[in-house]
């Protein structure tokens, strides 16, 4: 008996933007039908014949814009961009629109992002390229303008589907960059304060989302090690909402801290937040919660005992 569980239907692309069904949907939304694929087949050779000219049209358009210089002045990026643009036109004309095709577009989107090419400028260059192709096709079908137009329209449908993919890829990439920047800012904004030996206070202010909660765990555990903390007071007074996912993450953080030998006391959890978490089924009994920061510090002092030199605790060497 064979049994299997696969993730064949799982999304792919940046941040799981695309799935197998998604490309089909995009082709359908773009109105790409069998007759379009046939039409593209008929102009394939015509497109491939002037490939270099069409690729050049794209970059010529960019040349006049100062904001494109970051790309144009980098020979390594340009070489890759030329190659990808070329491969792309070949793939477009060849009529196979599959996962590899989409992935090729992602690479291009990432590259342009790296070169800080903005979406509007990219679209302008893309249009210049389409015009270059359109001119050649209309020349070829000079005696059958209607036929030429129909074939070029078919090609343009693919081009628009394509544009959607690249733009989405560029936007998603950009969101990733913003997220990474946010991460850097957040790391700086959640300091662990050492109040006395073995005691850390971690005041959390602002929006606590899943991403930041993960940051918090890493930062807290490292701080426990660095400061040899025995007790940590995590103060949530500055946090207005905690969803069940974040709450469960906090519970996990507390469990991880315990494994390292530290006790975490949670303070400042408002009764509204606590109530809503209980309603969501979060087991708050797994958190050591105390009303306010002051109470939390007192409890921490109680656990730590007097700050004076500790009593002889080591058994005599025997």
């Amino acid at each position, binding site marked *: 008996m064979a049994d299997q569980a696969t993730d064949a239907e799982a999304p792919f692309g940046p941040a799981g933007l695309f799935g197998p069904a998604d490309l089909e949907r995009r082709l359908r939304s773009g109105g790409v039908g069998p007759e379009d694929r046939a039409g593209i087949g008929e102009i394939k050779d015509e497109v491939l014949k002037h490939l270099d000219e069409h690729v050049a049209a794209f970059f010529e358009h960019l040349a006049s814009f100062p904001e494109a210089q970051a790309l144009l002045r980098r020979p390594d990026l340009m070489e890759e961009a030329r190659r990808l643009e070329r491969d792309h036109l070949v793939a477009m004309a060849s009529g196979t629109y599959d996962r590899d095709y989409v992935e090729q577009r992602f690479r291009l989107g990432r590259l342009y992002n790296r070169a800080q090419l903005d979406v509007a400028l990219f679209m302008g260059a893309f249009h210049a390229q389409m015009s270059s192709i359109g001119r050649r096709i209309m020349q070829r079908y000079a005696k059958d303008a209607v036929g030429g137009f129909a074939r070029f329209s078919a090609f343009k449908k693919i081009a628009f589907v394509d544009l959607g993919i690249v733009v989405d890829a560029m936007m998603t990439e950009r969101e990733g960059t913003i997220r990474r920047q946010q991460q850097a800012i957040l790391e700086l904004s959640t300091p662990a304060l050492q109040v006395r030996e073995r005691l850390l206070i971690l005041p959390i202010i602002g929006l606590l989302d899943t991403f930041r909660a993960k940051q918090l765990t890493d930062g807290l*555990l490292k701080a426990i090690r660095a400061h040899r903390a025995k007790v940590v007071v995590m103060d949530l007074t500055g946090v207005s909402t905690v969803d069940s996912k974040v709450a469960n993450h906090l519970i996990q953080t507390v469990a*991880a801290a315990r494994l390292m030998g530290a006790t975490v006391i949670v303070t400042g959890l408002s009764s509204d937040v606590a109530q809503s978490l209980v309603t969501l089924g979060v087991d708050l009994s797994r958190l050591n919660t105390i009303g306010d920061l002051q109470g939390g510090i007192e409890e921490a002092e109680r656990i730590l005992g007097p700050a004076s030199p500790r009593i002889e605790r*080591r058994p005599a060497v025997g």
Partner: protein
Amino acid sequence: MSVPILKQGDVLIASIQSALTDRDLLQLKDELAEKVGRLRSRGVVIDVTALDVMDSFATRTIRSIAAATRLRGAETVVVGIQPEVAIALVELGLTLDGIATALDLEEGLDVLVEVMEARRRDR
């Protein structure tokens, strides 16, 4: 690679030096059980600072060491779990419930004294 076990008063300290195979772990368990019985130790400290991975087998073995030594009247403290290892353990759902933990050896010995006193009071 076997784990050196040091005797300090009525405490045994097992200081893991490098990655352990399953067999090493089982050997550690047998040796500790034997030594606790023979030396009438009251506490065991297992120092896992050097472990960069604690998977379900290692964790289960440590749990059974704690259970076996408790039967012989000794308390176990696990010290030195690394931050990354702690995260992995929690992700795996292995939280070593009921076993005392501490940051390092020095702290572990403190904790052991507390735990042993608490046990004495309970009796």
